[in-house]
């Protein structure tokens, strides 16, 4: 029982009459959203506690430092297993948080200003977005939010409402 399979989203088996369905926590909430809002929940997300300074196992994975001892890696869904394996090391705790975090991509600084008091020129950062603790990343006018999946509908409602008020 070395790997905790039940934590991962990519260990399901199809067969015997079963066909597991991955369902994004934002699936219902974003049904009516416009093209400026994108669901990133399916992205592979792996949290590592411990040193990742010298890690160069998967070049395509994006590395987001959360605290000095904690790092979040983002990758394409199909690369998650490889990323977990590459990171595995007795000195680190590696947790697949793909199912734990919902992801949302938004456009426009003004919209973000209505959602958070984080310094948008000082990203990435972790702070309250719509009162939910969120990891916020920025590329130009595009923002990516990663937050606990159980707040997905709540967050989507606030985001769509704020966008409607602009």
């Amino acid at each position, binding site marked *: *029982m*070395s790997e*905790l*399979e*039940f*934590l*991962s*989203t990519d*260990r*399901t*088996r*199809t*067969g*015997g009459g*079963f*066909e*597991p*369905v*991955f*369902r*994004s*926590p934002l699936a*219902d909430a974003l049904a009516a959203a416009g093209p400026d809002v994108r669901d990133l*929940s399916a992205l592979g997300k792996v*949290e590592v*506690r411990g040193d990742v300074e010298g890690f160069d196992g998967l070049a395509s994975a994006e590395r987001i430092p959360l605290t000095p001892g904690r790092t979040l890696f983002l990758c394409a869904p199909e690369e998650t297993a490889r990323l977990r394996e590459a990171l595995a090391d007795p000195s680190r*705790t590696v*947790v697949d*948080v*793909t*199912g*734990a975090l919902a992801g949302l991509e938004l456009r426009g600084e*003004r919209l973000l*200003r*209505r959602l*958070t*008091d*984080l*310094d*948008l*020129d000082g990203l990435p950062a972790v702070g309250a977005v*719509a*009162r*939910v603790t969120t990891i916020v990343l920025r590329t130009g006018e595009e923002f990516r939010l990663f937050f*606990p*999946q*159980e*707040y*997905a*509908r*709540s*967050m989507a*409602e*606030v985001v769509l*409402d*704020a966008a409607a*008020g602009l």
Partner: protein
Amino acid sequence: MRLPPRPQERIDRSRELTFFFEGEPRHGFPGDTVGSALFASGRRVFSRSFKYHRPRGLLCCSGQCPNCLMQVDGVPNVRVCTMPLREGARVRGQNVLGSLDRDVMSVVDKIGGPFTPVGFYYRTMIRPRRAWPLYERFLRNVAGLGKIDRGAGRTRRFDTEHRRVEVLVIGGGRAGIEAARAAAARGEQVVLVDEGLGPGERAAGGSFEVIAPARALGIYEGGLVPVDAGQVLIRFRARRIVVATGAIEQPLVFPGNDLVGVMLPGAVRRLTDEWSLRPGSRAVVIGADERALSVVAELRSAGTEIARVVDLRAESPRRIAAEGKKGRLASVLVDGEGLDCDLLVMSGGRQPAYSLLAQAGARIEYDAGRGVFVPIELPASVEAVGAVAGELPSGATPAATYEGGGKARGKCFVCVCEDVTTKDVRRAIAEGFDSIELAKRYTTVTMGPCQGRLCQLPSVRLYARENGTDEAAIGRTTARPPWAPVSLGLLAGRGHEPARRTSIHERHVQLGARMMWTGAWRRVHSYGDPAGEVRAVHEAVGAIDVSTLGKILVSGPDAAAFLERLYPNRFGDLRPGRIRYSVLGTDAGRIMDDGTIARLDDDRFYVTTTSTGADVVSEWLEWWNAVWGMGVEVVNLTGALAAVNVAGPRARELLGRLTDLDVSNESFSYLDAKQAHVAGVPCLLLRIGFVGELGYELHCSSPYGEYLWSTLLERGADLGLRPFGLEAQRVLRLEKQHILVGQDTDSESNALEAGMPWVVKFDKDEFVGKWALEHVRERGLRERLVGFEMTGWTVPPEGGQIVVDGRPAGRVTSARWSGELRRAIGLAWVPAALAEEDAELAIRVDGRLEQARVRLRPFLDPDGERLRS
């Protein structure tokens, strides 16, 4: 009537806007405010005063005074003098019984004076005390400002926006624009906010952003400046704040100083220059500085005849009074000389608008030479520029009040917002309110819509004179935010409450579940038939969404030692693949949470907590991990995993259909933990029994929760599977006397008195709270949590009293009707002496005493045969 086009006018005469005043169409131009358009249409009475219902007209015409408060498009208390005119706007007067021109309540002004001195409601309407609600309703109806339409609901949308800037300039006058320009030229990012219509072309060419109309409401620590921009509250965080709020013209205090037609020079200047209106046909001008007196030229150019100019720097009249007819100015008396006029322009000099600076921590002192309060010693990162910094040309200091003399006996107002006269202030001083802070609270001077802009300085001057001292000794009242009235809707914003939902939430909604809040979680109360749901679990199989359970992974070489040291129960000897229950205690031995702990392998434990305790327990574990410095990682997986509890005599049969795992009782026993694929989804399976029947908790990655739930319901349908909610779960666990932390325990409860001595291992070297529990053991148990069943049919209320010898001696914590037992059952805290099987309890229900018997063992399946079957 408009004057011919003037060079500085703001209006666009090429287009006309139509709006409605009291339902009648009126006209104005783009560039008008509602106030200027009404003035152009001939209206002079704009409001009725707060208490006496005296007619009031434009006084400052710059959004400071209360005289033009009206209802616009249903919104009360709008200062129409600064509200830009919109096509189709519907404007009404407020605080009147009748109309603005004929207000029945103005009788208070005529005859109510002697009965309504300041603070009269503290003295004259207090008996009989029972009648106060009636008096209060009456007073609220006759006094005050506009009324909110309670039935309207949310008619306007308010948003909150967060912004960071290097430099925030407050005030769009000359000094503010210069400061903004200079900062922008240095390459700084600058935003200028102006409470008026903005600097317009004067700011042209400056590379800075202008937001207008927008009022800064205060300056808080950390450079936080909330700005009221109408529908949006902008919360600025500024590295540097430049206050350029200017100075405010102060009214003179003399009898009749509130008559319609008495204006401040700024109002005259705006009416003539910006909207090309003639403020009056014949005017008297009384001023203490050049700026006030220079208005004479503007009046002449507008065709107003000047009856007399009183320059307070050159002459010191002792008596000034204004007299009117039906509230409108008719003549002015200066030292006995009567002057017919319909306009009196008056000013007692300008007072720096220092409130924001004072809030930020600046020291404010009275400058006797100039007769005004000025800011000194500004806090770091706050600057003052222009008039607010005290850069004012010197003028004369006017008298505190001017007596009317002769027949002039009109009311003499210190505060027009709250209708406070010099007589009221004198009376308050005579009653002993000699401190300005106390007098403010008693007289309410400075507490109205102007927030002291027009009344702070005149009232300080009056206090000084009446107390025989000087203004510096009187001082000023504390400046607090908000500096300007702000609607509560703007402060509240959108008001979203974050809610946590499980990944199965939508399925529950589809099944018609009744949802309820448990902490921040939305959970299923029932699917409409709690009793039927209980029956399904006892007789067939049920499924409940328990994704909200706290789930924490504790891993590392010291994991076992860590839990051993933290929990009162023993975990060092727990074999991998096995589960054990424990409560979690505080260092004072009290129960903070409970749950099961499964050992996954040598170094990894899977800790579950109550739904509302997950975050607290996770932090508690991390805190002790940091304190002890043990080799342990604590990972909170609560939201990462969905969980479903499948329970009932046919649960095994259902599970067998979905997994290759050997689910026989021999290989998957009670309190075993295993990992396996269920319906193709990797799960952690925990065989535990909170609801008392054979049961399995299935934990899987959240995105598959919905699929797993749907598959269970589909494949279990022929077995009689029913989904069940919290209500059914509460009955089921009560039949087993399983406690709910927080429901059956409180912050004083410990495991010994809660009837769980078996979870406390006193032979361990150490665990959190051990000394406290040892103390409880030594002093003996005082009360006990026990089960009870009612002798009759009544279900006692939760929180109901246990009565011993006529006195309350305990309380019911849980009670339900059990259909399975056909009895009302519950849990209660009772004196330790009553904690014996069959002991009789008296429980107060609706004033009567009902009988019950103590039951120390589970009501149902006391030996746990169903659980282990």
